[in-house]
């Protein structure tokens, strides 16, 4: 976006950088915190009811693992999502924060409750042995933690839902005036919350089954009990999240539904939507095979089945998040802002007046295109409009996308980016000269494997010094 400096992430690209942090966060926040708190609360309750010391000890060991993961990795990668989006798409997070400030603030207060009760629950577990009144109090700490962590997810899910299905949230475009309640109660909030809730519990159960296997090497009786308990929870959750998932899918805009199969695999394989089906069936069978065999034959199923189940679940979760991110394209906030941070309503003005002219962090001599600064201007345009999804040489490389084209055909192609041929791409924004400059730069990097500063700035353009 033109209002901010340019951050480059060569080879990996912004999408990968962001996805790495975000998916790590989802694995841990959904598993170790939201779902984990619920299932551990359940097993602690059973341990208290049956005065079952072994189950109590096993639950503590699982909690210990979840505690380390949730506090060291889950919480920090959660803040990390924010830090990443700050530098990757400030215009989008800035808009989201203004619309969702109070919800986020409340979420932060609940996050306090969540963190304090997690620390308290975990640190006081050992000093509250079974059969003492302190144990009942300790259980209540866990319950508070579980409710709080679910609540934080509920709010964040509202924001994610808003990005895809904002509903009637804008009372006016100029000046932009949000309807805060409509933004919160956007159409996909409740279904996606139900969907996430149940797969979080299922995913946490899968993690707990793997951990139980490891922690019960010398006690197969306990293993059987744990597998039956967590296995039942896992299997019971599957129909529930499928149901909510279908309702959630139903809320997608039609254009997003059309992108579903492409999002589920890669664009290269778009001609074979059946591959996406194979992939999802494969991952689901990994989960089911592991879960069912651990449930049915807990004493004889080897560790590898639990590992297969875990990888299957991670694959499905990653797949879901990828599809959700992909089908929202070309927008980052549906119908309001394109993935590259340009507000939809500002496009006519930028096309008329020029994009670079408003770019605060582009040196002034590149803000209007001349024959001399064309390549450098084009490079700035590439960096501000394309690098959200593309890299030059690495993941989703722009260079391979333009092989076999020449400057003229690149120019024509970027005039129709947001067409049904590539409906997930935002349109090029800028004047005719700027489009020529971008085409010239892209053609330059198509021909030249290495970018040279000398070529780009040419002799007559002043090299900027500070």
């Amino acid at each position, binding site marked *: 976006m033109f209002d*901010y400096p340019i951050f480059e992430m060569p080879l990996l690209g912004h999408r990968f950088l962001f996805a790495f942090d975000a998916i790590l966060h989802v694995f841990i926040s959904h598993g170790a915190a939201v779902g984990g708190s619920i299932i551990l609360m359940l097993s602690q309750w059973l341990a208290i009811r049956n005065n079952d010391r072994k189950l109590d000890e096993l639950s503590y060991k699982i909690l210990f693992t979840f505690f380390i993961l949730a506090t060291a990795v889950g919480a920090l990668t959660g803040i990390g999502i924010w830090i990443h989006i700050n530098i990757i798409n400030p215009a989008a997070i800035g808009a989201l*924060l203004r619309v969702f400030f109070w919800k986020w603030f409340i979420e932060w207060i609940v996050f306090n409750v969540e963190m304090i009760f997690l620390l308290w629950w975990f640190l006081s577990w050992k000093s509250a042995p079974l059969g003492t009144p302190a144990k009942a109090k300790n259980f209540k700490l866990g319950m508070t933690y579980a409710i709080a962590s679910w609540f934080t997810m509920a709010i964040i899910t509202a924001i994610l839902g808003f990005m895809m299905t904002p509903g009637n949230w804008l009372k006016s475009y100029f000046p932009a005036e949000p309807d805060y309640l409509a933004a919160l109660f956007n159409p996909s909030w409740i279904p996606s919350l139900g969907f996430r809730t149940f797969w979080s519990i299922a995913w946490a159960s899968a993690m707990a089954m793997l951990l139980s296997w490891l922690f019960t090497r010398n006690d197969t009786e306990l293993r059987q009990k744990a597998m039956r308990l967590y296995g039942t929870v896992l299997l019971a959750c599957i129909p529930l999240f499928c149901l909510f998932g279908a309702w959630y899918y139903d809320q997608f805009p039609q254009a997003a539904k059309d992108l579903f199969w492409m999002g589920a695999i890669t664009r290269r394989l778009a001609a074979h939507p059946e591959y996406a089906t194979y992939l999802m069936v494969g991952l689901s069978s990994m989960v089911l095979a592991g879960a069912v065999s651990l449930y049915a034959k807990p004493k004889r199923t080897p560790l590898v089945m639990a590992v297969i189940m875990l990888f299957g679940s991670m694959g499905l979760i990653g797949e879901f998040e990828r599809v959700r991110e992909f089908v929202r394209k070309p927008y980052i906030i549906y119908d309001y802002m394109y993935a590259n941070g340009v507000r939809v309503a500002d496009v006519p003005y930028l096309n008329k007046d020029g994009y670079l002219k408003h770019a605060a962090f582009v040196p002034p001599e590149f803000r209007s295109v001349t024959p001399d600064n064309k390549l450098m201007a084009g490079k700035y345009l590439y960096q501000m409009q394309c690098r959200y999804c593309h890299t030059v040489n690495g993941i989703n490389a722009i260079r391979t996308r333009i092989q076999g084209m020449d400057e003229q055909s690149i120019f024509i192609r970027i005039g129709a980016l947001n067409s*049904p041929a590539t409906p997930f791409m935002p349109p090029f924004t800028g004047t005719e000269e700027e489009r020529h400059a971008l085409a010239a730069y892209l053609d330059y990097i198509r021909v030249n494997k290495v970018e040279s500063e000398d070529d780009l700035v040419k002799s007559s353009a002043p090299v900027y010094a500070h």
Partner: protein
Amino acid sequence: MKFNIIPGDIPLPLPTGGLEFMEPVFHALLVVSWVIHILFINVLLGASFASVYFNKRGVNEKNPVFDKVAYLLTTPVTISENMGALWGVAPLLLVSILITPLFYSASIMNSPHWLHIIYGNIVAFLLSYLYKYTWHTLHARKSLHILIGTIAVAMFFTLPLAFMSTVQLAMTPSTWTYHTHFWDILLRSDTFFRLVHFYLASFAVTGVFMLVYGMYKRRSDDPEIVEAGKVLTRTGKSWFLVPTVINLFIGPLVLFSFPDYGIEAFFNHGFHWLIVLTVLVVVYAGYQLLKDFFNDDLPASKVWSVVAVMFIAVVSMATLRHGMRMGLISPVLAASKAKTEAFQKESLLAFEAAQKAQSEAPVVTQPAGMALAEKHGCLACHNAEVKVVGPAYKDVAQKHYSATQIVQLVHQPKPENWPGYMPMPPMPQVPPADIAQIADWINSLK
């Protein structure tokens, strides 16, 4: 003051709910939440350092009391690392709406190094857990244990480098250039002196914390813990006094390394009186502790009076820091807001003009196949007459494909038919009936 770079603002209203007094409330919340965050981070740095220090000292002097002190200190480390991260969120939230363009711009200029506050933190966090939870298992292998602790502490101490350079850059927009980068800022005198001041303050704050923590431990029934509490009290006094005295000299260096117009605004708004207040209360606290310097059984009333006085000092410093920050960035914020409003005004005109033009556009009659080709995006790459990305439809017509063949080729293109061209992406979403009409149009182009 002239600024080279004025970033744009977010064209959405501040979430004040239309209440004018909310903006000052946001500022107050920012000062309070930020200072709580910093206090936790101070204790995190100081206590994690102290734990490793006493661990090593326990080994060197074969004194189990020091080992006990070191172990006791891991609890405040766990709590302050979690609460420190948590209380970093509120200021982040407030900064993101109050000084949006400056903060975002600074974090981008400092990236990817800015990401160290996440990834470096995760590594440090995991190592500090490893240090804490292997205390008894690694009892016989102390050098390994101390090594783990040392790496964790070293990692924690690198985080303020990324953090300080970003907040410092955000509050000095007059220094921005088109090429400003992390190392430029880190090695600047203002960032350097602030870092020194911050690290020293971390030890001083931890010193005050030790006074309180030691006081509670001295009340224990276990004589070893009482002894540990005395060590904490003794250490707390010197950890508070020494860095605080040095900081009285570093403070002016920090103040006068800011840009002139900021210092001017600072004095014009009378924030220097807060410096006077801070120095007075700090000197008072130091005097109280010096009087009892050799008394390890520091009475509770004295501990709490030092805490109360230092609380005033901390709030006063947080306020004057906010004063400096706003003095430095207010002109840029105002310019940014004005710039964005002007942009929006122009954008509205262009938006309305575009809508009008669209509704008044003359209806062009074109062949049905051509209309469908446009609708489905074929014309993004193909033109009837000339080669664009794909071959001209006139050339396609030369191949005399049947409509059925064209349906197949659209759904599953065969790049080998057109060597030298960019392979066409499959377009399975286009309905066969539509393709048949497009095919008719293509074949009519001979």
